[in-house]
């Protein structure tokens, strides 16, 4: 078991400047942060008999990140879906606050930014919302960093036969599913869409949690917001290996000291909150069009002379 705390200072940040300035951004050695957490690894033979062994190796990791210093002239740096500020972690989401769908017309409802003009406010059941994302309030919306990451490897051995599998998992953290956002947006005709869009609000389907499918309103209905955050927890079957050591009496005849036949599979399954979502794709929690980890099946024979 290990506890770590590592601080870093003078980090290079890309500092955004106003668009009305001569330059849009500069790189500066600013900012400090630390990472801390526990790492725990346990390994044991749970069963050990003459012919059968069950070995379990497991580990857990936690990470806490905190920004401890930013320059006085830019105490807050907003970048993409994240905002950096002292006391927050580097992967804190800063997003418009999505609430749901107005059952009367299928508009997306957001929490209003304080001070929004009354003309832009829509009151539903006594609560004030806005339907244009520009008036929506930004707020911290969790972090991409999970509460716990872990894995375990089970190895079963019976005589010459051995089976092991590795399972990775993570609990907590948020993932910003921009691919799903794109597939739910209807900004161009003839583009691929997600099947969930079939459940969009219609007068006949007023209780839908998906805003109306409106070509002219998609920028607001499907704006970058807390709507696209999803729990980043997952569990994946990373590796399975089945192997068989050929008996010595057979090997003697061909003058080989050791021979092993095996079959291995990698990346066999992943269960996450949304089908097809791979939260391991990016640590900052925002996905893009990338290849999923390839599923590999291998067969082989190992000889040792």
């Amino acid at each position, binding site marked *: 078991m290990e506890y770590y705390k590592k601080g870093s200072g003078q980090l290079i940040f890309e500092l*955004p*400047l*106003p*668009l*009305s*300035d*001569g*330059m*849009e951004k*500069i*790189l*500066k*050695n600013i900012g400090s942060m630390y990472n801390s957490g526990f790492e725990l690894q346990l390994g044991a033979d749970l069963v050990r008999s003459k012919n059968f062994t069950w070995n379990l190796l497991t580990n857990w990791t936690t990470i806490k990140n905190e920004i401890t210093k930013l320059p006085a002239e830019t105490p807050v740096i*907003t970048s993409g879906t994240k905002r950096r500020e002292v006391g927050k972690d580097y992967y804190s989401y800063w997003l418009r606050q999505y609430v749901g769908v107005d059952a009367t017309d299928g508009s997306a409802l957001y929490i209003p930014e304080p001070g929004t*003009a009354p*003309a*832009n406010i829509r009151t539903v059941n006594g609560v004030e919302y806005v339907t*244009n*994302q*520009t008036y929506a309030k930004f707020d911290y919306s969790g972090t991409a960093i999970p509460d716990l990451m872990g894995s375990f490897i089970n190895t079963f051995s019976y005589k010459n036969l051995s089976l092991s599998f590795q399972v990775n998992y993570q609990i907590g953290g948020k993932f910003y599913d921009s691919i799903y956002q794109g597939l739910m947006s209807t*900004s*161009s*005709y003839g583009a691929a869409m997600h099947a969930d869009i079939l459940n969009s609000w219609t007068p006949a389907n007023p209780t839908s949690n998906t805003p109306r499918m*409106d*070509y*002219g*309103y998609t*920028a*607001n209905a499907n*704006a*970058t917001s807390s709507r696209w955050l999803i729990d980043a927890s997952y569990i994946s079957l990373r590796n399975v290996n089945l192997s068989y050591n050929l008996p010595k009496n057979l090997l003697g005849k061909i003058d080989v000291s050791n021979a092993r036949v095996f079959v291995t599979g990698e990346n066999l399954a992943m269960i996450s909150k949304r089908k097809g979502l791979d939260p391991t794709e990016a640590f900052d929690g925002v996905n893009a069009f990338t290849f999923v980890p390839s599923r590999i099946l291998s067969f082989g024979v190992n000889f040792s002379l």
Partner: protein
Amino acid sequence: MKKIILLTGALALMVGSGCKKEYLDTASTEQVDIGTIFTTTEKANAALNGIYRYMFERTVETTSNAQGKPGLTGILLGVDHMGEDLHQASATWFTSTGEGNYVGPRTDNHAVTRYYYRTLFRMVGNANIILDNIDNVIGTDSEKARIKAEALTLRAYAYSYLVQFYGKRYDAAAKPNAQLAVPLPLKSTDVKMPRVSVEEVYASVIKDLETAIDLYATASTRANKSHANIWVAKGLRARVALTMQDYPNAIKFAKEVVDGNQFPLMNETAYLSGFNDAPNLSEVMWASMPTLNQGDAFGSYFAQIAYNANTTYQRGTPKRINSALYDLISATDVRKKMWEKAPTAANFPLPTTAFVRSPYMSRKFSVKDIAGPSLGDVSLLRSSEMYLILAEAYAKAAQPANAQNTLFVLTSKRDPNAVKSTNLGDALLNEIMVNRRVELWGEGFRYLDLKRLNQALDRAAVPNYASISVAEKMKIPAGDVQWEFFIPRSEMEANPNIGPQNP
């Protein structure tokens, strides 16, 4: 034409911690610092050329549909799609991706508002650095005066658009116009500036243009029409005066350009030649002129609007005119030939069969060479606009006879059968506006005209307008908040002094 490639970062201050170890060469090989640029007028001129080049090049300010955003010329195209006179049959670039449906200007984190804002402010920023440093370089006084005057003209030009996009319209009856426009940095050290009033921005634009006009008197001549000169500054001054409903000054400056007669109106042959060759089009006062090796087959103005540009966008989506406006053009007017009511293979030949024909499609703009990279010179200022400004200002200033005469100079050149107008009042103004809409179609005016005149946008009144192309955004009332662009989100976030967002 000499255009020196200037890396976008050429004017960038070298920032960061210079490593002082002797064995490291700290001079960047891909960027140039201010001290190197501003040594001679020749090098300073390269910085100036950088602005001109930036005005036609495919944008680097956003990656979203960058191909349809060729610098400032892309803004001219974009705003024309925000009016009703230029449109297309289906929803593609300029209609569904931001401008035509008004989503771009009215969504604070949209690529469109970022692109407009940043493109214009980057012109301002680079002009500011030139103005801060030009006095100390080595070179003749006449070259210094020219570079300085051009930088002032460009800065005024950029601000004249910024104030119209981001501020509520200027109202001469409500001086001072205290409504907020944009920040007004006038030196390279002006950073994180607050929004100032529309009145202040216009005051700065006028001051820059009038200072430039004085400077041009002692300046060397421009190399070609891609550079601004005294006539350009006067033309812009007239345009700004018209926007401010300052009719005496609109008359004064437009008349100076007209009387100067440096840019005689084009004859019919020139008019039909495709609006792509500034040196040979007599009435072009100022143009954005990419050279062949700066051509961009897809990311240029002509790639988006020339009838024969071989791009997927143009092949499938020809630009059409408001059919009601077309019907108002006299049959003998050369401008009638800019569009074809019922195009066929016979009356509207196209380079390949992959090109689509659409009723009322335009042939106003043509690429220089069909086999080349969609090249053409984009007119930024033509003397015909001066006649139109002059006629409108005369009409508004209760000088109908002068207005009729001025309009007739233009219409008689366009139409051998033209008759001098006898209209008065609104009928006269309307006649001038019809000519203005027809003459300046595709050059970035209609939306700004509607806004400056406080009129409503009514696409429903256009018989051939395809509502599906703009997601049914057919009407915007006069004075509505939708006439103002939202300040880009990234400006609101990075500029603590910016002030409030538009309503």
